[in-house]
């Protein structure tokens, strides 16, 4: 072992950008290795898009677009499900971070010379990877059933990117929840309570024009509607600007409020 000094060296100990990226990389690798060790944790990502697509297209598709016209609903609901996928995956971050704190390794991270935010960002990086897989399966499923792109591949990719960006901002909310609540079960319970009305009270599954006035009003301000409308317009054509800008505004707003809160909570958690 090298010689040890007890004198305080000069330098203020700030963590540079490159070091920060290296730390995030090492921590993301850890999260990925945990998934490898526990493949069951990928079930949601692998199966959810398949089950949801089949369920919505064949159960609701006939009712909404008429029997035998399910494929019309397909082009309506797949872009909507794109929005929903982000939300459901984001929820698992909350339960994951809560579980992490049961493990002493969090104490080790917090006594190391790394930015504390890097632990949370690494979590988000890996969840974005999971989300990308879910989106790929969802689109694969859609194409298999006859989804057609009326715009272009780059517009489709833009829709995917928008959904992922919005999903990342939601992750901060769920990280905050995960750090605040005592158990993973409680996180899941609260998340479901918030998610269900947001998902169904939106334009994801059915056109808001078919809803009563008060609900239609709610859907208009529901960010998930904005995202669903944006991704629908990006895939099927139509006016894009308003819904895309609204989604981006929500994304920035949610991140700006919840990310600092989550990092502060993480720093203070004992």
């Amino acid at each position: 072992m090298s010689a040890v000094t007890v004198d305080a060296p000069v330098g203020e100990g700030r963590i540079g950008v490159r070091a920060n990226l290296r730390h995030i990389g090492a921590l993301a690798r850890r999260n990925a290795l945990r998934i490898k060790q526990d493949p069951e944790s990928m079930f949601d990502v692998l199966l959810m898009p398949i089950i949801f697509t089949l369920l919505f297209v064949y159960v609701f598709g006939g009712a909404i677009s008429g029997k035998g016209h399910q494929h019309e609903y397909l082009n309506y609901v797949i872009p909507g499900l794109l929005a929903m996928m982000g939300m459901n995956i984001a929820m698992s971050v909350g339960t994951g971070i809560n579980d992490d704190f049961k493990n002493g390794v969090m104490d080790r991270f917090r006594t190391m010379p790394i930015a504390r935010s890097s632990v949370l960002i690494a979590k988000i990086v890996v969840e974005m990877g999971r989300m990308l897989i879910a989106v790929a399966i969802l689109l694969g499923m859609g194409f298999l059933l006859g989804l057609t792109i009326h715009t272009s591949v780059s517009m489709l990719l833009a829709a995917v990117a928008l959904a992922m960006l919005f999903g990342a901002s939601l992750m901060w909310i769920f990280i905050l929840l995960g750090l605040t609540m005592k158990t993973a079960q409680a996180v899941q319970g609260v998340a479901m309570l918030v998610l269900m009305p947001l998902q169904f009270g939106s334009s994801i599954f059915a056109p808001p024009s078919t809803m009563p006035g008060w609900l239609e009003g709610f859907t208009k301000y529901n960010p998930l509607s904005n995202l669903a409308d944006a991704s629908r317009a990006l895939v099927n054509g139509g006016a894009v600007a308003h819904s895309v800008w609204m989604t981006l505004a929500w994304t920035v707003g949610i991140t700006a409020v919840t990310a600092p809160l989550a990092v502060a909570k993480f720093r203070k958690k004992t």
Partner: protein
Amino acid sequence: MTSSKVTRTAGAGRVAVEVRGLVKHYGETRALDGVDLDVRQGTVLGVLGPNGAGKTTLVRILSTLIAPDAGSARVAGYDVVAQPRQLRRVIGLTGQYASVDDKLSGRENLYMIGRLLDLSRKEARRRADEMLERFSLTDAAKRPALQYSGGMRRRLDLAASMIGHPAVLYLDEPTTGLDPRTRNEVWEEVQRMVADGATVLLTTQYMEEAEQLANELTVFDRGRVIASGRVDELKAKVGGRTLQIRPADPGQLAAMARMLPQSTPDPETSVLNVAIRSDEQLTEVIGRLGAGGFAIAGISTHLPSLDEVFLAITGQKASVPAQDRGASELEEMVA
């Protein structure tokens, strides 16, 4: 009882950890109630105390996990409150609960720590393998830590703490919950680290552990330091070890007791208890028994338990009123 403590000359007297008037309250409970202590560079300070005495709170403050309510603490010159980032560069922490990722293999755990400490990929791999080798974990390097035994996990935890060559190492009850054999393994590792020059703050509930590893000792009770000093000084205060001798012929108990003035025979168990204050005295007692031609069936040394240490220390402080022991139960909740 051999003592493998290393008496240091180089750097002795320079203070690596300096704690002054440290206070931490949890509601009504005073987890730390004005603690002062110093750990000299290259030495091991044992912090001895029961559950709830404030030992873990101290370690958590010194490792920047929680902030103190009052007082100050400096580690390797850095202030725990004002310079947490710099401070984290020079410390290593091994907690009561192994802080490794149990889903990752031993090697991946150490590699990750190396990368977080800004080693290059190659260097992090090299250092991980070096540590695995040193802590006898090479065979288990690829298995997830979940499959490790308690002792292996604790060793992996120690290895993780050592990756960055920390100047100051905190060991928070490193052998609590381990069986005696595993405990000895951990002790050996700690002794090696100290021989390599590490400064260690060790918390423990066991007098035996403190005696094995520490140069100096601070005794905590209910968030306060109730005694401190060199281990031998403190031992002298509490009466040190007791030598228990069992004669082959119980009838010789009285004759043996006459020969050793400071001894007390216990006819019920046919054991002669001799208070021992130094290794020399131990040798002398055995020598005299041998010279006297006594046949001995069994011999063992007994260290004072934490309870006996407390009795001895707080007994001397009996003049101070309102030292009711009942209050410590309350503090166990904060531990």
